[in-house]
């Protein structure tokens, strides 16, 4: 059974039932024509499968399979949107999905890294931040800072921190949060949260699909 999480920038796949199979990642723009999967999620997923699972449901099911705590907040920062689920006593207490004002945050971070030829893995989280409401609007702050003499790397790092703080507030400013999505691999982003962060990696939605297909745990808690 082939599972697919069809994100804006990247798609994640897992062949469920194949021994030793690991999740794979493919840039969305490189998807082969005619591709079909058995169970899909992600905002592009409806086009590639007969069975589609709502992204928030996949996130919640994935979180429930990976997190053993009774009370937690799970935040997914994707390329295009951010979403969170808050569980209290094992039940969903709150959720949010920001595809408009929180749009394009992950996409913009990746774009900036390439455009300015930066390596986030070798950079530190900055002290200061920008007040960022969305990826597109926040870029003006970078340009203004650079014009005023702030080094490019510092300006971009402040932008990334601003996005992390915005996502943190969107999730209800919890003292501890579990983080899902590709930005788990961005050390500046993870270090910029003003709370304890538990990165779960980018396969949490795939884990949710697997749980719905009857397989409880396909990845370790840090995929």
């Amino acid at each position, binding site marked *: 059974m082939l599972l697919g999480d069809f994100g804006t920038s990247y798609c994640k796949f897992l062949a469920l039932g194949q021994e030793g199979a690991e999740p794979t990642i493919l840039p969305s723009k490189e998807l082969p024509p005619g591709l079909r999967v058995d169970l899909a999620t992600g*905002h592009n997923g409806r086009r590639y499968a007969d069975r589609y699972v*709502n*992204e*928030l*449901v996949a996130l*919640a099911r994935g979180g429930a399979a990976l997190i053993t705590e009774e009370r937690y907040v799970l935040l997914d920062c994707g390329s295009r*949107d951010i979403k969170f*689920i808050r569980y209290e006593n094992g*039940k*969903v*207490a*709150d*959720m*949010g*999905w*920001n*595809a*408009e004002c929180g749009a394009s945050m992950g996409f913009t971070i990746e774009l900036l890294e390439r455009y300015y030829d930066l390596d986030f893995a070798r950079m530190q989280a900055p002290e200061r931040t920008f007040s960022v409401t969305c990826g597109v609007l926040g870029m003006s702050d970078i340009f203004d800072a650079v014009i005023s003499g702030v080094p490019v790397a510092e300006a971009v790092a402040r932008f990334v921190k601003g996005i992390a703080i915005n996502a943190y507030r969107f999730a209800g400013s919890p003292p501890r949060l579990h983080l899902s999505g590709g930005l788990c691999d961005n050390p500046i982003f993870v270090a910029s949260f003003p709370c304890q962060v538990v990165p779960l990696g980018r396969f949490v939605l795939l884990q949710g699909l697997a749980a719905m297909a009857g397989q409880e745990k396909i990845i370790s808690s840090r995929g």
Partner: protein
Amino acid sequence: MPSHAEQIPPPPSSFREVGIVGIPPLKVISALNAAGIVIHDLDEPLVRESLETASPYLPRVYCAILRTAVVNALHLPLDAIYIDTGPGKCDCALHTATILADSLPIPVIQTKNTDSTPFGTPLCQARLDPVAKMQAITRGVKSAAAPSGTPPPCPPTAGFWGVPPRDFSILSLFPETTHFYGWARCMENKTPADHTLESLYNEQVPTVFFAQSFCAKTALARYLARKHPHALYLDVDAHTSSSAKAKVQAFLELSGIS
């Protein structure tokens, strides 16, 4: 300037079709019904015209219900408009009344509905398709009579709190056993300024607290959603986006509601 209907005069015999915005007092609706005048509820999309045609009169970032009312007012053959600007409506309607009165060649009559006689809320508590239920409630504002033949109440499994949305498609996601709360309930009860009834919710059932984007009721919706132990706050503009629908679907599914 719009005229104010403190002492509401009977409608002139020349009136054939009028528009209403919000919920004018029962006396106004009674008089219009008695005179056989056709009432158009301008809060609902009635004409196939773009919302952009309201933009010369109202900002684009404005309540989609009132923008819709302006579009209807511009395109329907109306003899007058009764627009409620009392405590059961909002300042946005008050300013819209001023603009319509200056822009249209027909009377724009402001009313202040403080009706307090409860008509009951059987539809809000009935087992019915939620879209049909909301349509029946909004249809009710055009009649001074209580609805007849309403179904009996059902135990609720979910709640929808808020105003009738500009785009009813969001309601199609809810089960038939959804109870309506908020201003929709005030509407059926014919007491639009009853803020106590508007603030009522049922903490025993998962509830979506809905408000139109840019409406003052967003504050109340979000406040009540935070007080409710199992709630989703949602604001939607002119059309229900796919992410808004996905949020409601996920909320209901994860709450164990099919």
